[in-house]
């Protein structure tokens, strides 16, 4: 937007304090959200947690269309709607909260450079993996992206999005890359981040900044999302200080929250995760999508799911 509009928005932002009912909108956590969007959303959540600003996460199937820039997540604060981490950081700064005030000019330049590195390499690699790798597209992306919509809309929307992303990849020169090259780029990026982090707790030693939030968002999502293969998460796991960094931020800023706000819940894998088998088994027994339709269950009379228990109960009472 133009300079004038931006200045106007900053003034509006500065006028009011942060409200209690701020909301962050993203796509549906369990079924719809993709790797890159999840990473972005988690980064914003981490940033707001670091600033001690309360926000509740609202999942909507049409979040992408509600967003002013077409990208998730976006926050709805008072009268204003701001999307993407960059503008959100500026908006929050206009309200008087900032994580990077303590940095000098050179450090701020470095921070911006590293944020661009993450956007340039990690985000683009995630997009590539989601939309340009045929196996992943067929098995994960298309089903998830179109899941809230009926056929044929789900196929049309996901093909449209895929075409758009592939055009962008071609324009920036990533279309010709193979998966191995992309993974190598991810490795290079992680190596750079790991070398920069070193043994410090945060990237700029004592206090977390928006760079920490961004890196956490991407790395945590990569580590906890199950894709077709584990190559992407293996690349990150090679660097011990990065995994320790993710764990540290999760413990510090996301522990003690309920499912809605927690990082663990929002990073639930694309397929069922292996991390907590008992909980998963119970959960899947209580509520299965097949049984919900009451038509796809293999063994309705002995099924323990909530739907069939209800039906069985009714039958018993007759």
């Amino acid at each position, binding site marked *: 937007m133009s300079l004038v509009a931006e200045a106007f928005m900053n003034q509006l932002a500065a006028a009011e304090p942060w409200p209690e009912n701020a909301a962050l909108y993203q796509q549906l956590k369990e079924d719809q959200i993709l790797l890159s969007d999840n990473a972005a959303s988690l980064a914003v959540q981490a940033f707001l947690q670091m600033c001690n600003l309360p926000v509740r996460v609202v999942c909507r199937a049409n979040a992408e269309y509600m967003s*002013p820039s077409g990208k998730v997540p976006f926050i709805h604060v008072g009268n204003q709607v701001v999307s993407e981490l960059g503008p959100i950081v500026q908006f929050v700064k206009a309200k008087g909260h900032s994580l990077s005030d303590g940095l000098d000019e050179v450090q701020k330049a470095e921070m911006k450079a590293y944020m661009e590195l993450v956007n340039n390499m990690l985000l683009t690699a995630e997009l590539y993996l989601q939309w340009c790798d045929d196996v992943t597209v067929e098995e994960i992306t298309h089903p998830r992206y179109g899941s809230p919509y009926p056929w044929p809309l789900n196929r049309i929307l996901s093909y449209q999005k895929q075409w758009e992303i592939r055009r962008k990849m071609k324009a920036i020169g990533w279309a010709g890359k193979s998966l191995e090259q992309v993974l190598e780029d991810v490795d290079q990026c992680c190596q750079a981040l790991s070398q920069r982090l070193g043994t410090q707790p945060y990237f700029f030693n004592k206090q977390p900044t928006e760079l920490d939030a961004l890196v956490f968002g991407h790395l945590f999502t990569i580590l906890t999302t199950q894709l077709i293969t584990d190559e992407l998460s293996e690349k990150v796991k090679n660097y011990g200080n990065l995994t320790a960094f993710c764990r540290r931020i999760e413990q510090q800023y996301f522990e003690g929250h309920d499912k809605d706000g927690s990082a663990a819940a929002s990073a639930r894998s694309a397929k069922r995760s292996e991390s907590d088998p008992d909980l998963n088994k119970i959960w899947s027994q209580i509520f299965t999508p097949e049984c919900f339709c009451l038509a796809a269950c293999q063994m309705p009379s002995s099924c323990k799911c909530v739907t069939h228990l209800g039906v069985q109960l009714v039958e018993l009472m007759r």
Partner: protein
Amino acid sequence: MASGSRAALALGRGNGACGYKPPSQGPATAPEAAPPPAAFPSRLCCRGRSGAAMRGQHRCVPRACAAGGQDGGSHGAELLGRRLGAAVPSSGVSDRHDVPVLISEDTVISQPAKILNFLRKQRYNADYELSAKQGADTLAYIALLEEKLLPALLHTFWVEAENYCSVTKPWFASRIPFPLSLYLPGKMSREALNRILLTRGGPPLYSLTEVEAQIYRDAKECLNLLSKRLGTSQFFFGNTPTTLDAFVFGFLAPVYKVCFPRVQLQEHLKQLTNLCRFCDDILTCYFKLTITGHSPSGQDTADANLQKLTQLVNKESNLIEKMDDNLRKSPQHPPRKITTLKLAAGGEESSPLNRLSP
């Protein structure tokens, strides 16, 4: 650091066109000695960090000097190659219309990152003395340049109508052989616009003017950040140039030096005096350019050659005069009309030659 060997990278550039003149020779100690390419035979002595002076035969298509072709930093990669290795320009265009292209013996390598990898494998590396953190910083700043500065650069060179029509298109078309020169510049312009719109043109920016305003704002912010990072030191990591310096130079030099009708980015850059000083330093150290843009070594060789030729012609004519005098004085032959040869100093060599020929 190899103080003994000389990193002589002379680059002659006349009138902004990408023509290169043969630079001066250097000591030959290289194991590889391929025969020089036919079009522009040049050999450059280069200095690798390890201290060995090696001569390589590489031909490098020079078109990357304008806005880094399609990839940002290609100019920088080319310059780094030129700084560390022998890069000789040829006048041909590669089949893939991709710039920059490094053609070394039989291999053709076409992207900046790949060119740098290739050079590293050939043991030319500017980053030996960097710490791990500085290496990481290099990668981060290169990403910053590509994200923030490159769209504005592409716009200035390829999308801004006045600049494109008056400078970029004639410049490129003059170096591309005939049928392609009508098509390739237009294609590159369309690709640049496409790239800008796809990466930066989404909502809430709906018109091209808004996108342009945003990308120029980002580019100016990026230049400010670079200036703050550079501070007062000579190069980004101390006193010796590294890959990052090459990339930054590659992005900044075209903005700084090319004379465009519409120059808002150049004006902003000129206010950042340390970046201008940085560009000038690299140009004088590694490209032997004076500020006016003429290559002194190139001119000198041409002048020297001309002088030698004139002297030779003068000597011959003097000899002939003496012979004629002798013949005249001898009683056996009748006097002959002697045509005196008048030679202007440093004048055209063609007329005396014509007169001398029987």
